[in-house]
């Protein structure tokens, strides 16, 4: 429709020239705005966050120095995200395989569509479900672990009746990250060249042997980067954790208690920012800076693995 009606040609050439210059300038300007915005993010965070380096005592929420404040939160962030990935990654690969290789074509199409929709559900809704439904239903499971595996430090009680524990937070993050990892893995699996899959089948491979011979080697870097991008999402996720965990500042591997469980950076900011003032704000912003650096590193790694996989 657009080709058939070419715009009338400008009589004066200068109009075209001026228009070109202006339009090129505007679009380049937008690109530069993005650059400035990102520079702004970095500068403002540094400007507000770095003064917190000297914070201690009251300004660092009762800790001796800023690192003693950040470390437990960082630990909690990593712990929750790692739990989430340990649960979500295998399941997501399974679901992606179902969609790409196991389910009949029409079913697979609907499933893929469904997973995309689930990936769009806002995180606060996952958090709401986590605290009001999942946490309560996990209590008997935690109690069982406390009773039968309490000697393992992970599962030492007491189990809170609210079910608001580190493991619940990890579960909610896993449920959130699942559709994202699935979507990427599905894409990668679907792109596996048919000719290699047929080569495997023609050698007399079963379906699993075909996947092992032809799909996984091809998809390895894609799967890695999917998990890393999912991890990046889990690290930066605020609401789901903020709703489930209380803002505590301790380092603990315990997964099923309320008092002795760690919290995460993002959740801690969300829960404390409203009441914070003065140098406490700087402290919180500094922790946000730390979070930014970590997620950036993880995402960067994920993308570079994906890029390398595409070249190779």
């Amino acid at each position, binding site marked *: 429709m657009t080709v058939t009606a070419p715009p009338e040609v400008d009589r004066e050439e200068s109009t075209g020239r001026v228009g070109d210059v202006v339009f090129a300038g505007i679009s380049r300007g937008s690109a530069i705005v993005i650059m400035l915005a990102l520079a702004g993010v970095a500068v403002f965070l540094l400007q507000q966050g770095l003064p917190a380096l000297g914070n201690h005592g009251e300004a660092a929420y009762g800790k001796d120095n800023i690192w003693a404040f950040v470390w437990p939160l960082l630990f909690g962030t990593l712990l929750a995200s790692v739990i989430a990935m340990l649960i979500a990654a295998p399941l997501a690969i399974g679901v992606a395989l179902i969609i790409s290789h196991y389910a009949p074509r029409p079913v697979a199409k609907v499933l893929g569509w469904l997973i995309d929709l689930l990936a769009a559900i806002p995180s606060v809704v996952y958090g709401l479900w986590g605290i009001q439904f999942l946490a309560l239903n996990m209590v008997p499971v935690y109690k069982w672990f406390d009773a039968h595996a309490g000697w393992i430090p992970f599962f030492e009680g007491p189990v809170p009746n609210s079910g608001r524990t580190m493991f619940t937070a990890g579960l909610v993050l896993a449920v959130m990250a699942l559709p994202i990892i699935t979507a990427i893995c599905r894409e990668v699996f679907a792109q596996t060249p048919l000719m290699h899959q047929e080569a495997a089948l023609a050698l007399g491979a079963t379906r699993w042997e075909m996947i092992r011979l032809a799909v996984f080697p091809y998809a390895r870097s894609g799967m890695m980067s999917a998990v890393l991008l999912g991890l990046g999402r889990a690290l930066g996720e605020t609401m789901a954790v903020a709703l489930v965990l209380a803002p505590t500042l301790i380092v603990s591997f315990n997964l099923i208690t309320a008092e002795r469980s760690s919290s995460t950076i993002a959740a801690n900011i969300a829960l404390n920012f409203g009441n914070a*003032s003065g140098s406490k704000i700087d402290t919180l912003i500094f922790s946000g800076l730390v979070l930014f650096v970590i997620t950036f590193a993880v995402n960067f790694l994920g993308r570079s693995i994906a890029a390398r996989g595409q070249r190779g």
Partner: protein
Amino acid sequence: MADLQTAQSLERQSMPLTGASLPRQAPLLAAVIAGGIAALIALLGGFGWVAAIFVAWLLLLVGLPLWSRAVEGGRRAVDRIVTLLVWSAFALAMIPLVSLVWTVLSKGVGILSSQFFNNSMRGVLGEGGGIYHAIMGTLIITALATVISVPIGVLTAVYLVEYGKTSRLAQVITFLVDVMTGIPSIVAGLFAYALFALFFGPGVRMGIGGAVALSVLMVPIVVRAAEEMLKLVPDELREASYALGVPKWRTITKVVLPTAIAGIVTGVTLAVARVAGETAPLLIIAGFTTSTNLDPFNDRMTTLPVFIFYSITEPGLHADAMADYAWGAALVLVAIVMFLNVVARVVGGLFAPKTGR
């Protein structure tokens, strides 16, 4: 001579194509048996049904492959284990996702009423309030974020695809857009806060700040989507336009962008759906209030996600009533996001460029 050859080839050419195999219904049969045994154990041992299902699954996971191994051999047994594991993973993954959707629907639908949509929470304790203020807040802040992000995002994509190509600046921008997609949403909120605090002093809360924070999250999504779509526009189209003596900027605005518009609209709609559900940055910069505020440049402004968050974390005396509000708001929010997603898909499907894939 011929005999010898036949004999030799006979040895090599015995062709068992059948191989013993389990009947087609074997997995079903095994599942029923495993379920039966587990039910029996559960009855005798007094387990709950969750434990019974787990026991049944374990029995199936061990039993079916053993049976298969005895009849069909090791390779088929491994194949069956993997098939079982993959489907189990799928079932396990579906449980929380289905439960989530079901919980939101069943808990949220009860409170929906005209009062719920038309009232704010101003002065309301317990029942009788609504989420009008939060819906308006979400609409205003998301709309403002869209107004900021779309021109910047689309124009940047135009720069990357049409002007910058492989220039140094374009490479840097592409990298920065990558970085931006990974910014944790709470960090975007901190940025907006730091920016606005510079002008309005500490403790600043206003709707436009929320829009700025959401833009930081939205711009990279829009750039990515628009870039993909612009790259799909075939070069022949541009050349045809140049050949008619049309200047470049007119070619872009009258030929390239209209061709890619459906894809760009899809991308923008998905981006809107994504940021409409954001909570963390708004918590920080837009704040929370119980009354309706339609002025984004002045004072606090509540959105649906923030409303949900505070209804749960600071419910006050009427925790149960506030939880009902939260579920109702969650249902409305999910409905909005799903609606936007479906619209995006329909738009994308209807006007999909014929050149694509």
